[in-house]
């Protein structure tokens, strides 16, 4: 039994290493966000005294609060529209027979391959010509196009697994087709839709390239792009600790989603990539 025990210990140590791997950079930015004054430059991992000062600075700055509002609004709108369109398309792809199915999946795959910057620079030019530059819509539209492929893949992988015959069975048992759809299919499809929504949220929340190329002011600039221009309380002091505080704030939604939907996210990532 000795070697088995040793192996067990090795795997536990491995597990701890994995957790440390994931946590250290996050812990570091959190720690930095609580450092005040000279503490920032003492190069130690943990603060010697906790202060909320950086969070006060961040929330006192219009640059951050409006960017946060932009990010939240744009992400929610883009995610909603994207998931609705992707659900319809994925249903069609998984369930219906029609010419052009392959075309849709082909286009989706081609777009995931495409370098975003190669689309962002022509869009910069086009948006300026038609007045979408530096607006919410001007960001939402490109977010749709690059989040749709992943959602369509994830959802059609999910939809293919749904036993659609159950819907007919319910109808045979006397349910109307709407009842059959609502009572049987919706509960089965909901987890897939939720997964697609979370993955889309991550992708849009994370975007930096469109945020920085298609905006020029507080009107529409989302947080990741705003952080790159953040100057803190005064333009003469290094904004390191306030940037850390702002980073922590925008990381909170990510951590919450990961904690609650861990299983769904893993299922979605592997369904989209491996089965698709």
């Amino acid at each position, binding site marked *: 039994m000795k070697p088995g025990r040793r192996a*067990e210990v090795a*795997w*536990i140590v*491995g*597990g701890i*290493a*994995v*957790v440390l*791997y*994931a*946590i250290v*950079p*996050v812990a570091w*930015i959190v720690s930095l966000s609580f450092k005040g004054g000279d503490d920032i*430059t003492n*190069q130690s*991992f943990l603060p010697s005294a906790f202060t909320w000062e950086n969070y006060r600075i961040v929330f006192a700055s219009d640059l951050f609060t409006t960017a946060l509002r932009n990010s939240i609004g744009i992400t929610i709108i883009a995610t909603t529209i994207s998931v609705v*369109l*992707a659900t*319809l398309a994925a*249903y069609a*792809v998984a369930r*219906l027979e*029609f*010419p052009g*199915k392959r*075309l*849709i999946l082909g*286009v989706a795959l*081609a777009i995931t*391959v*495409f*370098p*975003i*910057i*190669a*689309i962002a*620079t*022509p869009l*910069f*030019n*086009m948006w300026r010509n038609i007045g979408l530059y530096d607006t919410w819509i001007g960001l939402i539209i490109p977010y*749709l*196009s690059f989040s*749709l492929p992943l959602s369509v893949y994830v959802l059609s992988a999910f939809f293919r697994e749904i036993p659609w015959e159950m819907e007919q069975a319910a109808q045979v048992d006397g349910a109307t087709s709407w009842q059959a759809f609502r009572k049987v299919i919706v509960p089965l499809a909901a987890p897939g839709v939720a997964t697609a929504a979370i993955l889309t949220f991550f992708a849009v929340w*994370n975007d930096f*390239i469109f945020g920085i*190329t298609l905006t020029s002011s507080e009107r529409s600039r989302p947080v*990741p792009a705003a*952080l*790159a221009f953040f100057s803190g309380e005064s333009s003469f002091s290094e904004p*390191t600790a306030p940037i*850390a505080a702002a*980073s922590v704030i925008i*990381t909170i939604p990510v951590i919450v989603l990961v904690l609650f939907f*861990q299983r769904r996210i*893993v299922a979605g990532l*592997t369904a989209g*990539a*491996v089965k698709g």
Partner: protein
Amino acid sequence: MSTTIPAAPPEAAPVPPRRARPAMTDRTRHERRLGWMLAGPALFVMVAVTGYPILNALWLSLFDYRLTDPDGREFVWFANYATIFTDGLFWRQFGVTALITVVTVSVELVLGFALAMVMHRALYMRTLLRTAILIPYGIITVVSAFSWQYAFSNTYGFVNPWFGLGDQDWFGNTWTALFAICVAEIWKTTPFMSLLLLAGLAQIPNDYLEAATVDGATPWQRFKRVILPNMKAAIMVALLFRTLDAFRIFDNVFIMTAGAQGTETLSFLAYRQTISRVMVGLGSAVSVILAVIVVLIAFLFVKVFRTDLSQQKGGN
């Protein structure tokens, strides 16, 4: 790929039924119409927002066009491409991008495999491990870039004191700056790789491993003879996605060095030409070149992948 496919108007799909074929039933016709009605909008958005801009970029790349001087716009054929391909800076940045791609993807494959093995074998902490590993995946790249930049900073960072490196200025020279960028990239994206590999691991039938163990195979032999061959597909998919992604690296470079110290990548070059220098023609040409390279990488992977898979099938 997407660019060569003409944007089919969604409603034009139901082609008039040809007489030769058995007449379509109402049901089939209805299904086809419904299919296009449901999938059409998504396809339209994808093509309109990706296909059109890239065609536009192709067109603009043939002009000498500067935003600050719109009247001076002039059709110059392939002069922009000639300028780019004869410029040493482009090749340097191509090299930097390729280097970052090769280094990060190889490290990620090994590290990702190790993480996947730990997650696969973990008995007690399975949920905890999967939750933890998703944190880097979900975090905003810009935040991760800041975290690593401050970690390596010789004013704020813990890296120098932890490893006894004194006053090492990581962002003061090309190689160390690239090292820091690669570390940030690897940290952020290895989880994606390891989750795909984990899915691959889970698909290997346990009997194979047990049979190998009974036959007296060492862990290394089991890994090499049973695990690796059975995971070819998962590995290829993971490598393809990560390679394409790594080649487009932008956020980390922008935040950590802003391209200083010769760390500029091709994505950064495209950005700087068009957005900062408003050289739309030249910038578009860089975008087109970048797109072509990425498509070539994808094509190569798919090609190798296909032959590999068919060989595997033949071998069975």
